């Protein structure tokens, strides 16, 4: 019997093999079908292996050393509970994306640009989670980044995609640099890069603080923390939709895995200032992410911004866990940590689902701009049904899964008055308010997504003639929608499955939920708060059906179709409907005036003038303008200046080399 980690590595090898096979097959007729179905099978097997490990009760972490990589180190791979949980997320997302790809991939014009990289990307994510030394971790991380970059560049001729790929590459290199420095600090002067050795070395507070900042830069830029998020809304939508789903739903989670692995696991006992930093950045990311999403009218880019929001929510919860852990409050720490992991799982479900839905809309209409869509609920009833479920789930509304994880987070916030530090006492309620604000804005944002895209009247001929997508894509979406509902009404088993992770990382766990009456969840104690998604759903169903029964028994059945009433003036032009921009107007005015310097410019012609009136909305992405543009400007400026060095004579080059040498030797002499 092979160990779990060896089995998992076999799966990774299979994925890599598939990616080689895809190079050969990608131009053949069956390439798409063969590669996606094989990828799906491998992912399902890997999922089963990881699930068996996670659910199979306490098992010792299994390690594996391959004789590659650094000669004195080898490549270490290890499967523990944390890795197993993230492998579940990766491979579940991978299997769903492969299934969706079976249908969606048929419309791909350039399959040879997608097929080889798709399994490689999945293999890279699996490897990052399994890696157990800094060198293999960084190598696999880079492999994952490059594979996803290749997928972003799959449609490189489309406007904006090349720029997206370039910015992604720059930010990914920057992130890896930060990770490299973080691991360098962790390994210390002895330079032992194995995670086991790092875990056993004590770290000084300064090193811990530096490592945290570097991890926030490195893992945070991949996960999309504000202000390092700029590449994410460009790169995620540029890829084909099932890859967008993987990047948003899964790759950001791999970055979160990296953060948890280093900050919770390798650094040892955290100190409270770390938690304050994580809390603050998480809260800002959550609110800014969803406000960006609200202002957006490109469907896929909106979803990418909403990913930023969810990453912020997860980081808030991780920050709470760190705060409790730093103060030795074991049970609340486990609560916050479980909530974060639950949200990781939930977000991978509904964000994949929503990206699949956006892909379906894109396939059948060729449009990503919501302001050119509308009325799709009539033309694509099944897609709109699952999208509705996705929108309700991500808006954190009961009885779906998004609500459960947010509910757990709010419960964790309510445990925090016991924290002794004043800074935390003041920060936690503020961050709790930001969490609530982000949740409410998310609901507003997804009313906009569904209302503008699927409801109303079609705004373009493409939307008018849309047809339902193929059954395989629909199957992938329905499976994810069912998972959203299942995790929402039966959260107890999910929380129990997460408890080995909490035990391993924090040394504490929540009470076993399986023993609670009526399948409700009781994180702390019955008197502090409980929630039962199943009963809430049953109640809603009973109340709604009894209302329907009553109405159909006693009320009039008469129904007449007629033109819309609209107070006597129903505008006949569909373009006069509320669009994404107009729907966002009240929120733009309330929040955007300050945060985006939003201004509405109205150009109203004088009476008698027949020229159309125009409304122009001015929005500024301040992070881009105030932070990135100066940096890129400075880089461009200094590059221009340094360009002169290119045209020197040989004498000058030699004297330059000599001067450098002397300076370096001087520095060395003074240093030592």
């Amino acid at each position, binding site marked *: 019997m092979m160990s779990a980690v060896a089995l998992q590595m076999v799966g990774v090898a299979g994925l890599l093999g598939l990616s080689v096979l895809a190079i050969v097959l990608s131009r053949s007729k069956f390439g798409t079908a063969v590669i996606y179905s094989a990828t799906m099978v491998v992912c399902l097997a890997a999922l089963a292996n990881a699930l068996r490990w996670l659910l199979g009760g306490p098992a010792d972490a299994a390690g594996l050393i391959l004789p590659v990589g650094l000669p004195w180190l080898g490549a270490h791979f290890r499967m523990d509970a944390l890795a197993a949980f993230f492998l579940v997320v990766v491979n579940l997302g991978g299997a769903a994306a492969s299934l969706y790809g079976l249908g969606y991939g048929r419309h791909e014009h350039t399959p040879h640009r997608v097929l080889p990289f798709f399994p490689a990307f999945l293999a890279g994510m699996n490897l990052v989670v399994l890696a157990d030394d800094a060198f293999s971790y960084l190598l696999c991380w880079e492999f994952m980044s490059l594979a996803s970059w290749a997928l972003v560049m799959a449609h490189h001729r489309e406007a904006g995609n090349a720029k997206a790929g370039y910015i992604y590459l720059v930010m990914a290199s920057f992130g890896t640099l930060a990770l490299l420095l973080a691991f360098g600090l962790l390994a210390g002067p002895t330079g032992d890069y194995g995670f086991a050795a790092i875990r056993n070395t004590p770290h000084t507070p300064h090193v811990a603080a530096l490592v945290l900042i570097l991890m926030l830069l490195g893992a945070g830029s991949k996960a999309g923390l504000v202000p390092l998020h700029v590449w994410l809304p460009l790169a995620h939508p540029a890829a084909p939709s099932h890859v967008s789903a993987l990047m948003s739903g899964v790759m950001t989670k791999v970055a979160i895995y990296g953060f948890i692995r280093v900050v919770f696991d390798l650094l040892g006992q955290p100190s409270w200032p770390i938690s304050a930093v994580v809390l603050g950045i998480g809260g800002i990311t959550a609110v800014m992410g969803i406000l960006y999403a609200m202002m957006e009218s490109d469907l896929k880019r909106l979803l990418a911004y909403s990913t930023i929001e969810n990453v912020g929510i997860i980081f808030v919860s991780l920050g709470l866990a760190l705060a409790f852990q730093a103060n030795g409050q074991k049970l609340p720490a486990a609560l916050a940590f479980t909530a974060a992991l639950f949200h990781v799982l939930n977000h991978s479900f509904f964000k994949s689902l929503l990206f699949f839905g956006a892909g379906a809309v894109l396939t059948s209409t060729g449009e990503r701009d919501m302001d050119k869509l*509308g*009325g799709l*609920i009539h033309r694509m009833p099944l897609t709109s049904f699952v999208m*509705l479920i996705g929108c309700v789930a991500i*808006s*954190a509304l*009961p009885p779906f899964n998004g609500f459960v994880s947010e*509910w757990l987070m*709010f*419960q964790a*916030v309510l445990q*925090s*008055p016991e924290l002794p530090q004043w800074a935390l*006492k003041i920060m*936690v309620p*503020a961050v*709790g*308010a930001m969490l*609530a604000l982000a*949740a*409410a*804005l998310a*609901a*507003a944002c*997804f*009313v*906009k997504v569904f*209302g*503008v895209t699927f*409801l*109303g*009247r079609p705004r373009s001929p493409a939307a008018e003639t849309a047809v339902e997508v193929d059954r395989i894509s629909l199957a992938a979406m329905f499976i994810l929608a069912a998972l959203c509902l299942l995790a929402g009404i039966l959260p107890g088993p999910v929380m129990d499955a997460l408890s080995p992770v909490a035990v391993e990382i924090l040394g504490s766990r929540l009470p076993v939920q399986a023993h609670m009456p009526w399948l*409700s969840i009781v994180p702390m104690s019955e*008197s502090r*708060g*409980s*929630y*039962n998604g199943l*009963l*809430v759903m049953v*109640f809603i*169903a009973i109340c709604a059906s009894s*209302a329907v029964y009553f*109405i159909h028994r006693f*009320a*009039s059945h*008469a*129904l007449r*179709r*007629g033109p819309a*009433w609209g*107070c006597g003036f129903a*505008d006949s032009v569909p373009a*006069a*409907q509320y669009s994404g921009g*107009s*729907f966002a*107007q*009240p929120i733009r005015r*309330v929040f955007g005036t300050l945060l985006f310097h939003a201004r509405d410019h109205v150009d109203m012609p004088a009476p008698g003038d027949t020229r159309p009136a125009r409304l122009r909305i001015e929005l500024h992405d301040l992070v881009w303008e105030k932070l990135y543009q100066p940096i890129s400007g400075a880089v461009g400026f200094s590059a221009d200046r340094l360009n002169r060095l290119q045209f020197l004579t040989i004498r000058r080059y030699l004297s330059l080399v000599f001067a450098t040498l002397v300076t370096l030797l001087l520095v060395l002499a003074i240093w030592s």
Partner: protein
Amino acid sequence: MVVISDIIVQGLQMLLVLLMAPLLTGFVRKIKARLLRRQGASMFQPYRDLLRLLRKEVVLADNASWLFRVTPYLTFAAIWVAAALVPTFATGLLFNWTADLIAIVALLGSARFFLALAGMDVGTSFGGIGSSREVMIAALAEPAMLLIVFCMALVAGSTQLSTVANFMASSYVGLRVSLGMAIIALIMVALAENARIPVDNPATHLELTMVHEAMVLEYSGRHLAMIEFGAFLKLLLYVSLIACVFLPWNIALFGTGPLAYAVGAGAYIVKLAVAGFLLALFETATAKMRVFRVPQFLGAALMLGLLGTLLLFVSRSF
């Protein structure tokens, strides 16, 4: 046997909120009319309105989808479930622990989510403007509400509404600054959530308001009846919530027998009447504010809630 009596009490509570809700709205309308020196319609007019709407034919826009037809039942059910989970005359009912205060807020959020979608369904400007303003108001009212929930939960040590009510009814509470802030904020949120003056005007759907009533403009017949009924229930829910947390006197504790239940029910009706009277008084005394003043109004509620929570984080005794 105990379970059966529990179920009966819970069922009674569900029926009670259903039967009382139109009466409360009718009562508020009557008082308002009397304060304006009008005769006003009978207190029972909302019942008649509902029955009349049920008998009418539904006129559906040509392009209305299934979502438009399902929404009235869904929102009604969500609000009814939420209302049934708020203790009215007795605490500790059978299903009180199913969903705590946070879940009740979220259930109302679900109802609003679908209603806002239905406003967008037909594709008229009225629906769009109503929905977009409703979600703007909700985006501020919901976090304010959650902070109020935090406030109450921190005082009582639980988000379970029954536990909160029991705690508030006990003598440990006393006067607290944080609770004072919470009740002011809660009243502000309740006014906004129920589309009352000064945030919205429940009596018209034309230019002056264009929020809630504009959103449901396309509804007619039995669908409109369900939505109206939902709105009545929501008003009752908020009044019950304020009553059970801040005026918990004479609320029957769980399992104290029929007599206590009867006393609790009587006290509950008195509380409803007082709250309805105050609401009518307030509505006649103020004017509706411009829609872009509402964020400031709700921002104040949000800040009050945050301040209350912050005080409780500083010390449990505030």
